[in-house]
């Protein structure tokens, strides 16, 4: 049946050349321009983060619906855990508890000793970070990025920059926070770097993620550096984000090539991100009130070990100024600490004499070791 133009046509009945409204090409141009502008704004400015927050809050009910089947599956699985299995697990946990308790007894003594020594050297009390338990919701929907999503968000006082650990070591860092969820960038991501220390000799370095290969790279260490396959890397704590002493990775491969002054050091992360359901989100330690006098000075990284290291490095710098062709450049504000009365107080006479000995010991026989490696080792050698 043919309808006239004066009659009302249903949209699906109208002839094909009427149905599209604006031409597809002009529509395409409009939406392309819109998305390009959005990408530029999202990449360069911070305006769209609020929009993202609202949308994600609106999507949250759908997200719950979507993850419901998984939840049920897990609950059913838990329900049917056999009696035998529970007994076995209970036994194992009791054993583990016993071992841990024995270790904790030693820890109490060591802790007391540590506090005592710190007060002697007028350092800060060690910071014990508070933590929130988070649950891994999914491993990221984007095949391009190393991100996991946790079920804790800004409603639970999570802020970007917090460190995320599991019981074995560092998992990553919170990079984006939504009202009910948050995104964790894994330490293996290319964009993330983490300050580390070799546990064996306290050598400091920075580890960079290598992306898809799930490894960490430690660049800029000379070929003569004292590092072995199997060395454990722990956080050094100088950034004030990761508390010192968390396990990060194990060195798996060291390649030394003739044409490069740097060794290629590959390490494998310790924390099993794919295996765990629960992780801990550590609070960023509150920055201690640094001297009110030094208002115009740049605030140094907040860390308990920082004050101690600084005074040591200060003394070292003075001593090595004549010997060392490469002065320590990673702490540019150190020169001004001479005038700071608190920093001078921090260098107690026994500490400075110790570091004097330590620095001469390490610097003279082994001139190839990098200058920054001397700083942490110095106070360890009496």
């Amino acid at each position, binding site marked *: 049946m043919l309808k006239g133009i004066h009659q009302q046509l249903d*949209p699906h009945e*109208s002839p094909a050349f009427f149905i599209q409204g604006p031409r*597809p*090409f002009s529509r395409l141009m409009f939406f392309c321009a819109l998305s390009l502008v959005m990408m530029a*704004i999202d990449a360069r400015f911070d305006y769209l983060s609020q929009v993202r927050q609202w949308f994600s809050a609106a*999507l949250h009910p*759908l997200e719950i619906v979507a993850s419901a089947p998984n939840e049920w599956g897990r609950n059913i699985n838990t329900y049917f855990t056999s009696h035998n299995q529970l007994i076995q697990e209970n036994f194992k946990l009791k054993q583990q508890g016993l071992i841990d308790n024995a270790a904790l007894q030693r820890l109490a003594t060591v802790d007391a000793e540590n506090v005592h020594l710190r007060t002697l050297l007028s350092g800060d009390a060690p910071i014990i970070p508070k933590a929130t338990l988070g649950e891994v919701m999914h491993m990221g929907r984007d*095949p391009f*990025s190393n991100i996991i999503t946790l079920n804790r968000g800004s409603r639970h006082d999570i802020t970007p920059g917090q460190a995320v650990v599991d019981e074995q070591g560092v998992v990553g860092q919170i990079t984006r926070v939504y009202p009910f969820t948050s995104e964790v960038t894994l330490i293996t991501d290319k964009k993330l770097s983490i300050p580390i220390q070799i546990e064996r000799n306290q050598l400091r370095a920075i580890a960079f993620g290598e992306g898809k290969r799930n490894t960490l790279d430690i660049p800029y260490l000379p070929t003569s550096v004292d590092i072995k396959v199997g060395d454990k890397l722990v956080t050094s704590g100088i950034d004030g984000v990761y508390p010192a002493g968390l396990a990060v990775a194990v060195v798996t491969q060291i390649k030394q090539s003739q044409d490069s002054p740097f060794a290629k050091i590959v390490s494998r992360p310790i924390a099993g991100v794919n295996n765990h359901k629960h992780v801990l989100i550590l609070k960023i330690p509150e920055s201690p009130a640094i001297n009110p006098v030094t208002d115009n000075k740049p605030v140094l990284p907040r860390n308990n070990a920082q004050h101690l290291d600084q005074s040591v490095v200060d003394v070292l710098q003075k001593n090595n100024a004549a010997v060392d062709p490469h002065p320590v450049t990673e702490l540019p504000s150190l020169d001004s600490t001479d005038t700071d009365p608190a920093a001078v107080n921090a260098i107690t006479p026994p500490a400075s004499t110790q570091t004097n000995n330590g620095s001469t010991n390490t610097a003279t026989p082994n001139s190839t070791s990098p200058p920054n490696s001397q700083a942490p080792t110095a106070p360890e050698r009496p």
Partner: protein
Amino acid sequence: MKPVKFSTFFFTLLVGLVFQLYPWSNSGVIIRPDFLLVIALYWLLQAPYHCNIGWVWFAGLLVDLATGSLLGQHALTFSITAFLGLIYQRRLVLFNRWQLHLYLIFLFGMQRILIMLLKLFAGSEMPDWTYGLPIISDLILWQIMIVWFGELSRPKKL
């Protein structure tokens, strides 16, 4: 062929979004089809009076929000793919199955290549060959859509 209700169109998009939000594991992400792209593209060709480039663009925006990638990346590629589909819409509904599937492979592949280019510009790494696998699952999803909502309807002879 009965006209498609707007509610049907909207509801399928919503279901696609839920599937997109499902917590896919690592191996699941490798074979996961682009639910919203396939569903929106189907309706674009089947019911152009409901779904236009704007809707496909919006679906892409939802994918951006779900994946947490740069806002507008998927929206841009979705709208370009939709345009490439829409300019051949009259011919596509007349194509036989194999011709149509070849063109769909081109469309889905195009979208993945565009996304890859955008990500490479942003400094991501080159993905390996499994990156192309979702095209197959996209085609399977297209078959499911056809089973539920019928083959692409040819225009009525006036």
